[in-house]
């Protein structure tokens, strides 16, 4: 069934995006209903696909229009794509659920849902694209809708943040397009599998490094790696909370990390053994992000901005894992993509829920919410613990595997730094927990009411997921993460899987 219905991952949200303007005008809550139905369908379908693969199903190569992989557009659904699609939709559904109440203070409900559906279509499309130009097209669909979503409030701050984000994002997109054009000029194909064979035949020339460099700049901007990060804190601060959750939890990972790792490992076929310089560069960039963004996060007085910097530092962790390049480090990086997306989605939604009730984003202005908003507060605490890497939450195991990978690759100092900055993460999360959620003795708790049901439901879903991925890390590892890691470490096996033979 998966072999036949694979395009539905993209087609259903696109159809939703075109249906919502028609239905949402008639009765505005129809937009909510259609949006959430699409989200639920995508979650169910991605879980179904994952189970099919885990039970020994073969990776699916779907030829659009029955043209075959050499002539037409292919969608590829292997373990790595399955993981990424699952993440995108697992965070997408709670965000949609949260949106139902979040949008109460905005007009233009159907516009929001249309853009959100396009964002989901783009994210799923990037994860499934089997040729490099469609990857770019889906990347742009997701990016353009995210620019508009960041500025959805159309206040002064929102517009500025959106414009700044758009300027950086579009330069990045153009970089990616240039490198795609150059790759096509060299290999005369756009299919990633064929391209990897052609590049393998050509060997490592300066041309390859040039293309890789332009691509790295483009994707590093998309994933907000440290020298290219400056759009992210503003964008997170201004975006509606569900969009922040998707942006930080999924968007940077799919558009930046997934696309880059797919191209580096499966198309260029690089490994630490064949290209140590490039992987050391990744380690350097990852470390830089990890250290500097963590230190910047400590200084923030705005709890949403703090979370944004925390996202940048966690992206540093993931890139560090890929840069170390050993099997367990890649497993850890992929696990961290999964764990962090759920965790950060949870934290953004919870902090928006706090802001909604108290009307303030400053850490010093609120205190003692644990009494008045218990569910929100404890969800936030669960997210913070997971982010800091406290067992039994998902964040613990992902960081553990990155550290294990560093030790296995005999990079002990990297292991030490990774462990140390896990403590720093705990530090800045404790700053929020101590000041905002628990009351200091000399201060009255801020008056607030508990958030309404759909918001709480979204939070609880994400807490349960963060716990489930932590407690059940063994089956998650065996059936989801390790097959995905094997796709990456398998390198050029990808070409054989897509083209056969």
């Amino acid at each position, binding site marked *: 069934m998966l072999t036949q219905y694979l395009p539905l991952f993209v087609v259903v949200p696109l159809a939703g995006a075109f249906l919502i303007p028609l239905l949402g005008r008639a009765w505005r809550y129809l937009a909510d209903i259609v949006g959430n139905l699409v989200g639920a369908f995508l979650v169910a379908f991605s879980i179904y696909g994952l189970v099919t693969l885990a039970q020994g199903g073969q990776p699916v190569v779907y030829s659009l229009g029955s043209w075959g992989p050499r002539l037409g557009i292919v969608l590829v659904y292997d373990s790595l794509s399955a993981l990424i699609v699952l993440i995108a939709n697992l965070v997408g559904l709670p965000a949609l659920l949260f949106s139902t109440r979040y949008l109460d203070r905005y007009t233009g409900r159907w516009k929001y849902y249309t853009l959100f559906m396009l964002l989901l279509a783009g994210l799923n499309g990037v994860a499934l694209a089997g040729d490099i*130009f469609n990857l770019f*097209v889906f990347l*742009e669909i997701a990016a*353009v809708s995210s*620019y*508009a979503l960041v*500025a959805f409030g*159309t206040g*002064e*701050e929102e*517009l*500025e*943040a*959106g*414009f*700044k984000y*758009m*300027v950086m994002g*579009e*330069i990045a*997109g*153009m970089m990616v*397009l*240039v490198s795609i*054009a150059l790759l*096509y*000029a060299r290999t*005369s194909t*756009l299919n990633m599998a064929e391209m990897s064979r052609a590049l393998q035949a050509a060997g490592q020339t300066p041309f390859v490094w040039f293309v890789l460099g332009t691509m790295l700049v483009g994707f590093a901007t998309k994933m907000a790696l440290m020298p290219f990060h*400056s759009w992210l804190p*503003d964008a997170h601060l201004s975006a509606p909370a569900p969009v922040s959750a998707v942006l930080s939890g999924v968007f940077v990972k799919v558009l930046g990390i997934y696309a880059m790792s797919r191209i580096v490992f499966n198309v260029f076929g690089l490994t630490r053994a064949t290209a140590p310089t490039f992987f050391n560069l990744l380690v350097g960039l990852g470390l830089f992000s990890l250290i500097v963004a963590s230190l910047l996060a400590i200084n923030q007085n705005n709890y949403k901005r703090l979370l944004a910097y925390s996202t940048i530092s966690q992206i540093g962790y993931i890139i560090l894992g890929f840069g170390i390049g050993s099997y367990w480090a890649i497993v850890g990086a992929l696990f961290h993509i999964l764990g962090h997306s759920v965790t950060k989605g949870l934290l953004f939604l919870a902090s928006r829920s706090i802001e909604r009730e108290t009307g303030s984003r400053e850490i010093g202005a609120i205190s003692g919410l644990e009494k008045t908003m218990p569910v929100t507060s404890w969800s936030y605490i669960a997210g913070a613990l997971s982010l800091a890497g406290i067992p039994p939450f998902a964040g613990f195991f992902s960081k553990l595997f990155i550290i294990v990978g560093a030790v296995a690759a005999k990079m002990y100092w990297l292991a030490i730094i990774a462990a140390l900055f896990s403590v720093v993460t705990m530090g800045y999360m404790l700053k929020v927990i101590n000041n905002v959620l628990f009351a200091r003795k000399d201060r009255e708790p801020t008056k607030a009411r508990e958030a309404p049901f759909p918001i709480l439901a979204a939070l609880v879903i994400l807490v349960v997921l963060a716990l489930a991925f932590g407690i059940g890390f063994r089956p998650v590892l065996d059936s989801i993460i390790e097959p995905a890691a094997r796709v990456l470490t398998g390198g050029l096996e990808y070409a054989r899987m897509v083209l056969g033979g």
Partner: protein
Amino acid sequence: MLPFAACFLLFLLGLYAVVLKRNLIKMVIGFSLMQYSVNLLLAFVGFRHDAVAPIITRVGMTDNFVDPLPQALVLTAIVIGLATTALMLAFVMRIYEKYKTFDITEIRRLKG
């Protein structure tokens, strides 16, 4: 090599406008320049000597065609460029409504 150098030059011109110009509209024009340069690059990639446009105008035609794929890519890139330019202009208009100016130095309220 010369066409590629020209593309690169055009790209740099666009980048210069985006990064250094103070007027928002000029930044958008810079973006358009960058898009055109990438489109031009894609079109050059498909070029072949002594070839004709890949359109079949009579039955059984087997001339030497230029590579049609980059042209399809250019078309797609133009569509994407249209969407981004329109959105960017919308941003600029809304910013102008708020601030009554196109000067970016008077607008920058957010920092790094």
